[in-house]
């Protein structure tokens, strides 16, 4: 599926086309389930979240038209935001990620292999310019849904310190990506 194909499916979904919605699910649900699993770290909860994500996609597909994102980025953003909302809404994060991924297909995605193959994305170059633990914190937030609170506990620093460090890191990152 090209990005154009996915765009068409999202636009048709916004017009209540169920066949397009079925195709969209068939072509993107594995990626979005991967997002839910990684952020939520719990398989049953990820399955529940995936359902809610596609309900959102059906009801909010028209929002894609006003977004600047590529179609798959928009879908992943919907899934990530929903999964993070779920994590923030509960008291303690399930950290049984290994168990959740036990049944998962561990082979890297085509995109990941391109990255592994040496064609390095600029964001990784810029993350390398940050101190290692701060870069790890940024990655942990994006990929694992870690909050300031989680990160402060993990790195054993006060919450405000973590916030200040990450805010500065984010501005450095932006500056690096813009040069």
């Amino acid at each position, binding site marked *: 599926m090209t990005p154009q194909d996915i765009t068409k499916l999202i636009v048709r979904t916004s017009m*209540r086309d169920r066949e397009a919605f079925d195709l969209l699910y068939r072509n993107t649900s594995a990626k979005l389930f*991967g997002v839910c699993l990684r952020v939520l770290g719990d398989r049953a909860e990820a399955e529940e979240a995936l359902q809610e994500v596609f309900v959102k996609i059906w009801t909010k597909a*028209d929002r894609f038209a006003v977004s600047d994102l590529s179609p798959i*980025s928009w879908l992943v953003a919907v899934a990530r935001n929903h999964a993070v909302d779920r994590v923030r809404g509960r008291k303690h994060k399930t950290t049984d990620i290994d168990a959740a991924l036990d049944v998962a297909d561990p082979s890297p995605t085509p995109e990941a292999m*391109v990255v592994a193959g040496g064609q390095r994305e600029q964001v990784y170059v810029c993350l390398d310019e940050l101190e290692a633990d701060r870069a790890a914190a940024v990655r942990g937030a*994006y990929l694992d849904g870690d909050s300031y609170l989680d990160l402060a506990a993990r790195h054993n620093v006060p919450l405000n310190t973590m*916030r200040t460090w990450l*805010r500065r890191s*984010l501005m450095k990152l*932006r500056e690096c990506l813009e040069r």
Partner: protein
Amino acid sequence: MSGAGEMEREPEGDDVLAAEYVLGLQTAEERAAAQRRVEESRDFARLVDGWEMRFWPLAAEFVEVTPPAGIKAQIDRRLFSSSAPATVKQGSGFWSSLAVWRTLALGSLAALVAFVALPFIDPPAPQSREQMVASLAAEGSNVQYIVMYDSQTGEVGLSHLSGEPATGRDFQLWVIKGTNAPKSVGIVPGGQTARIALPDAMTKAMEIGDVFAISVEPAGGSPTGQPTGPVVAAGGLTEI
């Protein structure tokens, strides 16, 4: 974690908030506030999209995992509990949800069509003449129009049922044939009824299942030639 520059002022402002929202660093309350701003402020939404794009390469690390087989049926049950799960209908083409639209729209449509269609239909109809109707609506939107198509005139008649564009915005009518990109028919004029000429290539070419859609656009219409705002009503052509 320590290093030079710890005495600098802490960065703040909307772009920092947008980045924190995208990374998911905030509490539930802070996220809810940020989400409201995304809905309400186009500028803030753009900052959020900017950070989504910056971090996008990291998303390659999300490993694809095929979800269990029953999940899609559960989604369909949540969304379409009153109807059968979507199965692929043989030869029904892309716009098979027409059946759904029909069942949704026909109840109210039947009563209206006879009345609304009258001004658009002239009595002596040659055999090659085709007249069709589409009921335009969408979930979560109060915008409703009925579109009448007459192959002889190549015009569509529009009948306004409900919903108005916000100040400084226009409704724009689009036609979508099959898998093609939407083609603009024009800005929807105000008032109860209106006639708009179809684009030249379409005047004789409309078929059952072709879709009309209305999007919200800046005053004067989409600057790009494609819909840029949310679709607030859509529907497929059916026979009268």
